[in-house]
């Protein structure tokens, strides 16, 4: 992330969101990397007030790291590129949260984003988080869970209100007379859902320092420990390295999921197939071995849903002293899963994709981040990294009972096309009622069928899943690194195909697969006429996508006695495409700024406090059209930037 274009892009994003002052400070820090207040002031030519308030606000937004040196007591500031970059992903994240946990959760999330980080106690006081009717009624995959939690807490509401009052009396100055009594009833379960899913985390002091500073600090601490001091040589090195990592982990750790997960599923997380979504009657076969809530929202289900919480703490609100922020790492995991799912949707039936989604969901709950090391892994140098194994039956539990599993997989033998399909439980009248009569045998069938779909996904070319036997039980996992690489290659291949055509794509794939090849061999495999091959290789070489290596056969290095080998280095290509992507994103944002300036007067008019919200009344027809067109234009440019960000995510973050 330390490239010129990434810096330019982050500065633009900051300007787009927070204005010129932040952008100025950030760009100076980006240029000099690490500055004390006085030097920053010197370079930025800003006043004390601007700088101090600016820096404080930027720290609040996690846009700037600070570190006060032990040696001279001077505080140094550094740009936090990662946080700045994630500004562009805010829309994607909020949309994802809304999709997953409902509109209200998205509002909570965006409020936290707006505040940078915030104490739970402060969030309680915000009128913006007071639930409106529409929030309660919003339907999304899991918001029922939240609402249900709310219902479950009905008894506790009173008690909670008291708690809130206590909170308000805390000496944190939040003596709000605003906090409505019933508000935390929705806020807290939502916060707990967000925390349980890992989408938010606790803010720790160390998170305000750059990773390098934290590492140095931790190293210093470890080295000063008496037991470490006693060590020497290699042992010392190892002990320090290990201790440092441990200490870093401990200091940076903001995990809030502990105690909020049960059997690898966040408490209150709902199956995707709630009856509400399908409009089916709320009677459903109960799977007995479902240790985890097989929830329904029906009356009898309630004990089941929360049975494991009888003396749990789930009715207790989040501690109001906790400071929370967005956990981008975790959200990257979720967004990456989305990409995996898209890959599955491209070539598999929707039913298979849905089964896959259930598996991925389970995996997401137990995956904290995309990968362990922060550097972009080099091709061929990273090991395999399997996700947690998810028992087949857990996936079966999560798959919608109304989903027609059998109908989307063909028979094993073509000769007898009417196998199980004929006696499939769900005939023409797809109705939940049929299921009950089928009973246990149908469960067995379903397990088999779900397994079939997962097996389909395990096939080449993508190998989206992989099967593991763990002590006699079938479990399913995902090989993250393999898939992340696949995504990366696909993005690069798309660029190559668009720029140089499908012929080039074939050539690159051959080179990628076979390594270094001379032209003759390359031709034999790619079956391309020499003329085309040469042209495509030459233009790709100009573009930096393939390269040529000379292997002289004698000391004189005569060209006639030299073998020329073509090769494709995905790491290098990826790097340069990543830079180009940053640059393209910047260009789009710069163009957007330019377009906005073109319409400056007009846009300022539309933003006038009297006009805003009353556009129909104050603007002429032509102006309304212009406004609409502007919005579409801006949306397209921002959408384009978001699409480019997808590529960045694939090449850098996943």
């Amino acid at each position, binding site marked *: 992330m330390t490239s010129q274009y990434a810096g330019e892009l982050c500065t633009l994003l900051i300007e787009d969101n927070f204005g010129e002052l932040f952008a100025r400070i950030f760009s100076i820090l980006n240029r000099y990397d690490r500055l004390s207040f006085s030097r920053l002031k010197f370079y930025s030519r800003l006043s004390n007030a601007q700088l101090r308030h600016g820096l404080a606000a930027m720290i609040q937004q996690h846009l700037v790291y600070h570190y006060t040196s032990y040696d001279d007591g001077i505080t140094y500031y550094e740009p936090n590129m990662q946080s700045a970059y994630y500004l562009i992903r805010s829309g994607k994240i909020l949309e994802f949260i809304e999709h997953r946990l409902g509109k209200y959760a998205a509002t909570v999330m965006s409020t936290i984003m707006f505040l940078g980080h915030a104490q739970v106690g402060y969030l309680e006081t915000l009128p913006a988080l007071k639930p409106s009717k529409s929030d309660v009624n919003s339907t999304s995959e899991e918001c029922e869970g939240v609402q249900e939690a709310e219902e479950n807490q009905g008894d506790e509401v009173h008690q909670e209100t008291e708690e809130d009052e206590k909170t308000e009396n805390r000496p944190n100055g939040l003596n709000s007379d605003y906090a409505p009594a019933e508000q935390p009833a929705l806020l807290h379960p939502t916060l707990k859902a967000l925390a349980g899913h890992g989408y938010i985390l606790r803010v720790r002091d160390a998170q305000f320092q750059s990773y390098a500073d934290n590492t140095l600090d931790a190293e210093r601490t470890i080295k000063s420990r008496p037991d470490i001091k006693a060590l020497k040589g290699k042992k010392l090195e190892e002990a320090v390295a290990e201790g440092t990592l441990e200490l870093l982990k401990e200091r940076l750790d903001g995990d809030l999921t502990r105690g909020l997960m049960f059997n690898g599923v966040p408490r209150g997380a709902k199956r995707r197939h709630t009856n509400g979504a399908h409009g089916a009657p709320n009677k459903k076969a109960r799977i007995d071995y479902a240790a985890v809530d097989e929830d329904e929202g029906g009356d009898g289900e309630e004990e089941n849903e929360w049975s494991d919480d009888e003396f749990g703490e789930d009715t207790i609100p989040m501690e109001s002293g906790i400071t929370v922020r967005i956990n981008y790492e975790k959200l990257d995991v979720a967004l990456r899963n989305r990409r995996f799912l898209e890959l599955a949707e491209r070539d598999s039936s929707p039913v298979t994709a849905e089964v896959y989604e259930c598996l991925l969901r389970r995996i997401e709950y137990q995956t904290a981040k995309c990968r362990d090391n922060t550097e972009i892994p080099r091709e061929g140098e990273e090991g395999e990294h399997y996700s947690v194994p998810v028992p087949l039956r857990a996936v079966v539990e999560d798959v919608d009972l109304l989903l027609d599993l059998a109908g989307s997989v063909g028979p094993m033998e073509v000769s007898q096309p009417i196998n199980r399909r004929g006696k499939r439980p769900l005939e023409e009248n797809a109705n939940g009622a049929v299921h009950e009569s089928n009973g246990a045998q149908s469960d067995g069938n379903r397990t088999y069928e779900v397994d079939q779909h997962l097996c389909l996904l395990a096939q080449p*070319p993508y190998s989206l899943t992989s099967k593991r036997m763990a002590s006699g039980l079938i479990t399913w996992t995902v090989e993250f690194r393999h898939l992340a690489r696949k995504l990366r290659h696909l993005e690069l291949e798309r660029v190559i195909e668009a720029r140089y055509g499908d012929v080039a794509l074939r050539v690159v794939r051959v080179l990628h697969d076979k390594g270094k090849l001379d032209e003759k061999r390359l031709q034999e495999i790619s079956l391309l006429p020499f003329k085309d091959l040469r042209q495509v290789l030459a233009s790709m070489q100009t573009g930096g996508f393939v390269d040529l290596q000379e292997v002289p056969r004698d000391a004189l290095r005569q060209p006639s006695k030299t073998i020329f080998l073509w090769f494709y280095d995905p790491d290098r290509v990826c790097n340069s495409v990543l830079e180009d992507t940053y640059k393209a994103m910047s*260009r789009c944002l710069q163009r957007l700024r330019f377009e906005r300036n073109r319409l400056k007067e007009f846009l300022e008019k539309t933003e006038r406090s009297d006009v805003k919200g009353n556009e129909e009344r104050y603007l002429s027809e032509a102006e309304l059209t212009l406004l609409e067109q502007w919005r579409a*234009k801006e949306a397209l440019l921002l959408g384009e930037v978001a699409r480019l960000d997808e590529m960045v995510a694939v090449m850098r973050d996943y």
Partner: protein
Amino acid sequence: MASAGAPGASVTELASKLYEHCLNNYPPDQLFYQQDLLGLGIVPKSDLALLLRCTQSLVDQKLFRLLQGKNDRLAWKIISREDAEKLQNLSPDESLVYNVIHSTGRNGIWVRAIGTRTGLHKSILDRCLKSLEGKNYIKSVHNVKFPSRKMYMLAGLAPSEDVTGGAWFTDGVLDENFINTVAGYIEYTVSRKSWFEVPSADASRIKRLKTSDGSVSVKQEAGQKAFIPFPAGYRGYPTVSMLTGAVNESGITPVRLGEESITQLLDMLCYDGKLVALNNGEMYKSVKNPEAVKQSQARKPAGEDKGIDDRLVTNGMTEAPCGSCPVFKLCAPGGAVSPENCEYFDPWLEKSLGF
């Protein structure tokens, strides 16, 4: 018996007997050592000297070719009468050249290599080659590996795949049309065996799929055939030999294609992302279903640019005006080429938004 006759006559007789026997009972490529010929029982008393005289006589008549077998032992091969006749008319130099060319079989030989092996002067060699080519005994061939070398082989032989580059080359040039025809045929054939066609009565069910989140779009349209994948572990996907057979019977190829050639093509199709090899190439599966294959094949020749259809092609980079911008490298804010005065953004916005 024969021993009574004149030795000269008996040698000729014996020799022709020997020749007839070898010609009739052994493949033309058979390599004969002394023991082999003695063992035939034609030369009486296993008389080695007599045998050697016979073979020499045959070599003189160009009916036998003298070779050095393993361990420098003498060995012979038979030459057909037809060829022998040709050879008898050749000058010694020509004969020498002919033999060298003959020895390389279907691989052919580079002119310079003939020179070194025969030790003939270049002008003589050229004359010999010209004369041999004129008599239509040898032909010059085009080697794909060494396109610049002048190479010869016997006129009656078909160049080996190493020389031609395989079935996909015609006169050393890759036959693109032929390749595309066969590749298209193979893709469709594989596709038909890779997908299960849902009987039309059942087809309606496929459409009843969850689309609530909008991410899963219904792909099948009314009236279209519905295809579903076979389960994992399905064994009915086509193999190389099945496909080779199908291609050869289809009538799209004038020559019989070997499995190697078909494998080559299958590999290429895999690199194109159209097929997937299962179990290390034991079987092949098509990525698209037959309908989709038909559609994409039908579209290809129609509009080249309109081919921005399905699979890859689009991502943020390919869509952005910057993605393939010819002056992207020069572009900098405030520069001669800059995002502000960029001439591509406006048409780009217009193209997508329509205003």
